[in-house]
């Protein structure tokens, strides 16, 4: 889980910045400079796209930095089949669909207990859970591997759910409890007076009021789950059960001499996450920054 950036969330940052109208020559020069830097920054991905849509002979004949003479979709067809992407896509998707909602729910419950219920040893629990942010995955791989082997859960994406949940919880709890804390106690008190128990308060008041934070946490968690590599590497061994990152690594070995096919394969692996990022960036950007800078 590499993407977890544990900061607090208030509400998604509104993407509309305060309108300082960019006027004058300096603004134009700065824009130009930044545009060049951005072009350079995105050039690895741009090259990847250009290479993926040209025939191999064209790539070798004209070199990697040339404009393609011919365009083709066949690289994608080859890469899709040989890379076993139909299977790895399915596995990664099933994993994320089970893991993310489950992780967000249990983290929200713990976050609620820490933020709004009088719980004994609250500070100790918080410290212990947040400490998980600092623990590298590899300290746990040997015991996790043994546990999964004795449970017969190696080589199954379901064996990944437990470890993935455990490594996602610290970040999710950190963000959610700080969001819950900002919800006014008066609303909860009012519901209590009306006879609502903790569960009703949680499901009918806390969760509906926290949709922005829940969505942000779910998105970041989905990205981390989709990208996780080490647990998947040690626990999955048959092709039928691999996730996208492990599948991509195998694929990379097989296509070492087929540059255009390799480019197409990499692109197949990253396109869903790029599309999701572009569509949901308001939530990601806002979630990573808003509220983290107070004090």
């Amino acid at each position, binding site marked *: 889980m*590499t993407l977890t*950036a*544990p900061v607090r969330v208030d509400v998604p940052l509104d993407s509309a910045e305060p309108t*300082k109208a*960019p006027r004058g020559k300096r*603004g134009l020069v*700065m824009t130009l400079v*930044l*545009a060049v830097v951005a072009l350079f*920054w*995105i050039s*690895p991905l741009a*090259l*990847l796209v250009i290479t993926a849509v040209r025939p191999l002979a064209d790539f070798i004949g004209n*070199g*990697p*930095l040339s404009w393609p003479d011919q365009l083709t979709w066949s690289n994608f067809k080859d890469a899709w089949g040989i890379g076993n992407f139909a299977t790895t896509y399915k596995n990664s998707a099933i994993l994320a669909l089970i893991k993310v909602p489950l992780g967000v729910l249990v983290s929200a*419950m*713990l976050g609620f*207990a820490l933020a709004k*219920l*009088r*719980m*004994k040893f*609250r*500070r100790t629990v*918080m*410290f212990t*859970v*947040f*400490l*998980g*942010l*600092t623990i*590298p*995955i*590899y*300290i*746990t791989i*040997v*015991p996790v591997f043994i546990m999964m082997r004795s449970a017969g859960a190696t080589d199954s994406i379901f064996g990944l759910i437990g*470890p993935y*949940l*455990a490594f996602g919880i610290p970040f999710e709890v950190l963000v959610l*409890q700080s969001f819950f804390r900002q919800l006014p106690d008066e609303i909860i008190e009012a519901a*209590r007076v009306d006879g609502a*128990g*903790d569960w009703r308060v949680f499901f009918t008041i806390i969760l509906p009021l926290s949709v922005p934070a829940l969505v942000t946490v779910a998105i970041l968690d989905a990205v981390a789950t*989709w*990208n996780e*590599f*080490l647990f998947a590497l040690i626990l999955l061994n048959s092709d039928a059960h691999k996730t996208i990152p492990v599948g991509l690594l195998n694929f990379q070995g097989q296509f070492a001499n087929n540059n255009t096919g*390799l480019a197409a394969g990499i692109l197949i*692996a990253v396109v869903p996450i*790029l599309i999701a990022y572009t569509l949901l960036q308001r939530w990601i950007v806002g979630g*990573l*920054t*808003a509220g*983290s*800078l107070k004090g």
Partner: protein
Amino acid sequence: MATTVALSKPKRRGRWSPWLFALPALIVYVGFLVYPALSSLWFSLTNWDGLSATYKFVGLDNYLKMPSDPVVVTAVKNNLIWTVVTIAVPTVIGLLLAIALNGKVHGKPILRLIFYTPAVLPLVSIASIWGWLYNPQYGAINSFLRLIGLDGLAQPWLGQDSTALWAVMVPAIWLRTGFPMLLYLAALQGIPNELYEAATVDGASKWQQFWNVTMPSLRPAHYIVLALSLIDSFKVFDMIYAMTYGGPGTSTQVMGTWMYFNVFQYYQAGYGTAIAVVITLVAIAVGIPYVRSQTKEAS
């Protein structure tokens, strides 16, 4: 809460009800993170090979062996270089980009989108992309050098000891610049304009304004960027594994990968976990101030 009846009811419920909410997450957390981490402590004191049914307790032998293992020495050095470079460079570039983006610039949303894009990609795919760019024959990087007449600089970037680690750090920088940029951008937008106006009235130059207004206001952002980058940098594994597999030779091994190789290639699970324990303890020690600040703030 006027009457004692109203007070005592939620209080009694309060004793166990919070734990019903807390337990699912805590059980998973303890079962799959705390317990495995602690049992690694135990394995690190044994000579277990990772396969046999039996093993012996060997005390601190695995730890005492480490200083004389040349690969551990390399790995520690690489971890240090990795930590310094992949924190310093992304932070500085991120800050510069944020300052530029905070000025009078067109197309801010799209620029911000572009600079953060690498951060959402799977590490393995970033490794694939850059491995492909670094390809000695058909890679874009050598082709570019030849194109601009620097043929002499074209070289097998990932295939030689002298450049391999640095070549792996470039994509790491590429990927890790987005986060400081976003954080600094949000922080810069929070600095009240009056501060700059007052400084201008006092005759402060742009340079003085940067050091006396901007930088001090960014202190909380510096703290978060530094803390999170530090914690993150000790976890390095995916990128090295997928790009160089620790090679050529063992020149790009870091503690995380060397631990993995010992456990899964050389069948020295005891020794491997000892390596993991060492780096984890460092990571925890470095991370504790941040963890404490997050715990304190909340109460």
